[in-house]
């Protein structure tokens, strides 16, 4: 395994009498994108706020590159870049002044470094305009530029694609993958969208009511849950054929089978040989609700 950049041990947070985070344990490795998946209110943001030092954990430890966030705050923060929720920068300052502002809070960042970061996120053209004139996508990029100024080893992004248009989401995804693969950063991303985590992350932790109910690779956790939906004519006959190979469920006009590589071709061949026409064949990504049902054995999201 590669180097551990962020380690969380038995992290708990109690507000009043209510324990809202119930003992989290996980690690981030260098060069991986780690996803935090859970419905709203699962405790993703609270966890992220504890990781970034905004909220004091009740018990437990967080260390970033070997430095404890509570005991060695400044050292730990030097290795961390983050955007908690939306990148809330100063709207009355220009993009450049915003970056200058945050650069001044770091030990030593030269103007060349700032310029380099601006080019990296592709904001050179508008950097001297006031932030209030920026689009959401540009603000998001400026936020990332701000998070990358100190050349962090760990990057924490809370809902990074929130509010972006499809093109912006794709761009952001490529950007994050690039940071992990080519720059060797560990990236922690939170989201309530299954599809997004699936496309972006290497490993995923599924959170529910302040607990991590499962941590595994995306491959094991999500991709294996993918199904194939068939629309066949005639349906009954098609079902009989498919049942020779695998389990089949009926969902309205569709037949649902597991998605197994290479098998789909075999099955469709058999269907055609039996004279059944395939009207539609669809990959079906599981929804969060289904996944929860599966993982928790019948308990729903709420």
């Amino acid at each position, binding site marked *: 395994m590669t180097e551990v950049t962020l380690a969380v041990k038995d992290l708990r947070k109690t507000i009043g009498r209510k324990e809202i985070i119930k003992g989290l344990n996980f690690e981030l490795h260098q060069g991986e994108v780690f996803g935090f998946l859970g419905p709203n209110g699962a405790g993703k943001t609270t966890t992220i706020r504890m990781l970034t030092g905004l909220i004091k954990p009740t018990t437990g430890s967080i260390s970033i590159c070997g430095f404890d966030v509570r005991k060695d*705050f*400044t050292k730990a923060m030097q290795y961390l870049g983050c955007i908690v929720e*939306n990148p*809330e920068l100063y709207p009355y*300052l220009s993009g450049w002044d915003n970056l200058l*502002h945050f650069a001044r809070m770091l030990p030593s960042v030269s103007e060349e470094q700032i310029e380099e970061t601006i080019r990296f996120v592709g904001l050179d053209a508008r950097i001297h305009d006031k932030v209030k004139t920026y689009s959401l996508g540009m603000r998001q990029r400026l936020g990332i530029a701000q998070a990358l100024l100190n050349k962090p080893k760990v990057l924490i992004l809370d809902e990074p694609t929130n509010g972006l248009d499809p093109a912006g989401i794709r761009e952001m995804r490529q950007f994050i993958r690039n940071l992990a693969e080519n720059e060797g950063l560990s990236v922690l991303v939170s989201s309530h969208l299954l599809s997004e985590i699936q496309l972006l992350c290497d490993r995923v932790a599924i959170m529910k009511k302040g607990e991590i109910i499962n941590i595994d690779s995306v491959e094991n956790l999500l991709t294996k849950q993918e199904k194939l939906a068939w629309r066949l004519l005639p349906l009954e006959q098609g079902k009989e054929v498919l049942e020779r190979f695998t389990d089949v469920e009926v969902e309205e006009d569709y037949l649902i089978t597991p998605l197994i590589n290479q098998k789909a071709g075999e099955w469709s061949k058999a269907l055609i040989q039996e004279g059944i026409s395939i009207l539609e064949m669809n990959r079906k990504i599981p929804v969060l609700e289904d996944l929860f049902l599966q993982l928790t054995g019948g308990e729903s999201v709420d």
Partner: protein
Amino acid sequence: MIKLVHNEMMKIMARKRLIVIALITAVLVGLFTYAQYKETMERQEKLGTDWRAQVQAQIVDISNRLSSSRMSEDLRERLQITLKQSQYYLDHDINPTEPGAPSFVRMFIENSGPMFIPLLVMVIASDLVSSEHTLGSIKLLLTRPVKRWKILFSKYIALILSISLIIAIVGLLAYLLSGIIFGYQGLNAPIITGFTAQGGNLDTSEVRLVSQWRFLFMDFGLVWFVAVVVGTLSFMLSVLIRSTAAGMGIMLAALISGSILSNMVSSWEFAKYLFMVNLNLTGYLSGAAPPIEGMTLLFSIMLLSLWWLASLFVSFVVFTRQDVY
């Protein structure tokens, strides 16, 4: 640390608050200059240009009012002090209303010390921390490799700098604008100070003459001190209350109640421990009667210092410990 203060000043400047403050001051100075000018003209029309005659007339006026029986003890005492003061000016051949920009500045700063300048300071101080919460930028600010107390301290230094700047702006504008009408003479004119009012008696044992510029210097020092205390209090509210408007409202209510209390609670002794009745420090210099018996310059300064220390302590403790959501 210098870099952090630089950041805070950059933000204050970018929001153009100081320009607004300068504009408000310019308008007010203009108004007061005109009012003062009108008053001088009217007085001269009535009494001629002889200031002795004017002071004499004032004495006669006060004596007449004193002879009326329907008057509260409180007011009577105050009038008696003013009467004795005027008499002293007359006896020692000192013109109390030496016209010119410096005396206008003195008048202006003395009157704006307990209310107007604290208001201006409040405009900046009350959203210094809470605006970061409203914007959400606090989350970026506190996730940098800088300790929280340093961030707050840099904001506080920026506040002190802005307060100094505000007072300098007010002083300069008042001097320059009023000088256009009244002329700039009178910087060295002797000013009388050291009156201490005690139970209706004017203690003149420590009375001495000070040149106008030194007197102005003391005035500005005291006003600056008051502004710092009020600024620190609003700063604390800004840390405690995340809404700028609520913080400003509380501070505004405190200031206004201070000026009301000063005028009506001479018998409620405990009120002298409230910071807002102690803001008129310059009044002690010019010998005005304190709002509550037994208050002295030293008492007020000590009391304000206590309030100042307490609010600074609360600000830092809360800011470094609070959870940020």
